[in-house]
């Protein structure tokens, strides 16, 4: 899932300070599951902003609504009327949700209430960890299902650097060394030979380095009107 966390209240207040009518829009998918921007968080944030702006002596009209997915046009259509009534939209979606709102409602100013942090999973209650860097050319088949691009601090491809000690990364004792994890897993699966091959430099074109990415699936596209 996409993992995000809420921005500090002061920063959010600064982002919406010039608006009278604010619409807080939650999202029912990833950010709901990571407790950052779902129905519940949208309601709590709206209440906090109402209270806080009132205490500041500059009360703002704060409404809130949550859609199933901010990243799909059909769900955004459902809040068109509320958006029109607001001066500003405060999105509690991920960065994709914020941009979808901006694109779908070109006349409306939209600001983010979250920092979109990574693609990951909850490793335990209340703890989320990064798992994927969306590099566009998955090598998990070589590394025993543990990603060195996302989980090695240096995205190394040929094994651990000299900073791996007692299973953790040189950057912090709290950061597991991805290559230690890969080594242990390949050893346990009797597949250490995979580590002995020299992996050539990665082709980063499939990653962000190739520019903004796009997938076109002709088999799924609808026929154009001319056809």
């Amino acid at each position: 899932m996409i993992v995000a966390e809420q921005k500090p209240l002061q920063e959010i207040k600064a982002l919406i300070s010039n608006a009278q009518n604010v619409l807080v829009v939650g999202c029912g998918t990833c950010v709901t599951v990571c407790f950052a921007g779902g129905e519940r968080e949208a309601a709590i944030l709206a209440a906090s902003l109402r209270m806080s702006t009132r205490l500041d002596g500059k009360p703002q009209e704060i409404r809130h609504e949550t859609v199933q997915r901010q990243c799909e046009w059909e769900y955004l259509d459902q809040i068109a009327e509320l958006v029109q009534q607001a001066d500003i939209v405060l999105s509690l979606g991920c960065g994709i949700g914020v941009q979808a709102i901006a694109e779908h409602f070109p006349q409306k100013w939209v600001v983010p209430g979250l920092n979109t942090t990574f693609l990951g999973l909850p490793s335990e209650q209340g703890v989320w960890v990064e798992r994927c860097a969306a590099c566009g050319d998955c090598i998990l088949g070589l590394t025993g299902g543990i990603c060195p691009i996302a989980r090695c601090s240096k995205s190394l491809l040929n094994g651990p650097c000299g900073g791996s000690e007692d299973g953790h990364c040189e950057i912090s004792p709290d950061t597991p060394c991805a290559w230690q994890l890969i080594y242990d897993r390949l050893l346990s699966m009797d597949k250490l030979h995979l580590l002995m091959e020299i992996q050539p430099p990665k082709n980063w074109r499939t990653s962000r380095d190739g520019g903004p990415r796009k997938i076109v699936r002709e088999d799924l596209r609808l026929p154009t009107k001319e056809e």
Partner: protein
Amino acid sequence: MSDQTTLEQKAHSNGYLAGSNLERVLRAGHFAVTAELGPPQSADAQVIRQKAALLRGYCDAVNITDNQTAIVRMSSIGAAAIALQEGLEPVMQMTCRDRNRLAMQSDLLGAYALGLRNVLCLTGDHQSFGNHPQAKNVFDMDSIQLIHMVAAMRDEHVFECGDPLKGAEPRFFIGAAAAPFAGPVEFRPYRLGKKVKAGANFIQTQLVYDVEAFSKFMEKVRALGLHEQTFILAGVGPLKSPTMARYMQQQVPGILVPDALIERMEAAGAPWAGKKKEELTKEDKKARTVAWQQEGIQICIELIQQLRQIKGVSGVHIMAIEWEEAVKPIVEGAGLYPRPQVN
């Protein structure tokens, strides 16, 4: 590059891969000595010249660090060019942290054109250690891929993309680092093997204080036959104080410092032990520092003598960081002075 290709087959018409002094000394079978010179956090060429004067004649080549510990310093290439003017043979260090493959290859061309002949290919410390933790890191390639790229430029006359070079190729004597005691320890000889396979002609190891542990590492290295395919220089460095020794034992990844060495350092400071800071005069502190330093140098000399006995160790790399003065007594004390002249 096929595994069967021998050093001679890859060599230039003069019989050497690069013809650097370090390569000549090693291939002549001498026990090599390299040292380290850290560039300043300024544009002051004089700092390089002063440090060069302390090292000249006492080593076969000098590593010029590349933004070591991710702290901005004069570039390795710039400082190496100055060191070269000063009569030292530099080993330019290059990390993967700050440059992508375009920048690395263009720097290799420029460095060779400036007269540099040795390069040490490193991953690089993470930028979170240094003075610009906010920086975006690069890590376009890793150290093994970098080694292969430098070798391919020299031996196959091609850039990383496969395009041929248009003219003279950079002919570097290619070095790599080895961290025998970093995790997972069992994988370390194999990782060294990957570096050798990628094209590393010489290896400089992380600091060795635990000779027994290093001997075990070398046993595995020999079993893989790596000592016959590359020159291995064991890393050594003089301890400055018991505090530094303990810090390295506890805080620095991949360094093993036996308690016995820490006890020796403590014993060297024994006449001043147990006294509070304010009880020590300026002279006391100075005398204690000198006693510690003498012991640190003595330990370093003994380590070199022990490491020299290990089969497959072709030399030592002396890391006396910000203490270049120590190199002379260490090299002399270890019986490695004067350095051989190989033409």
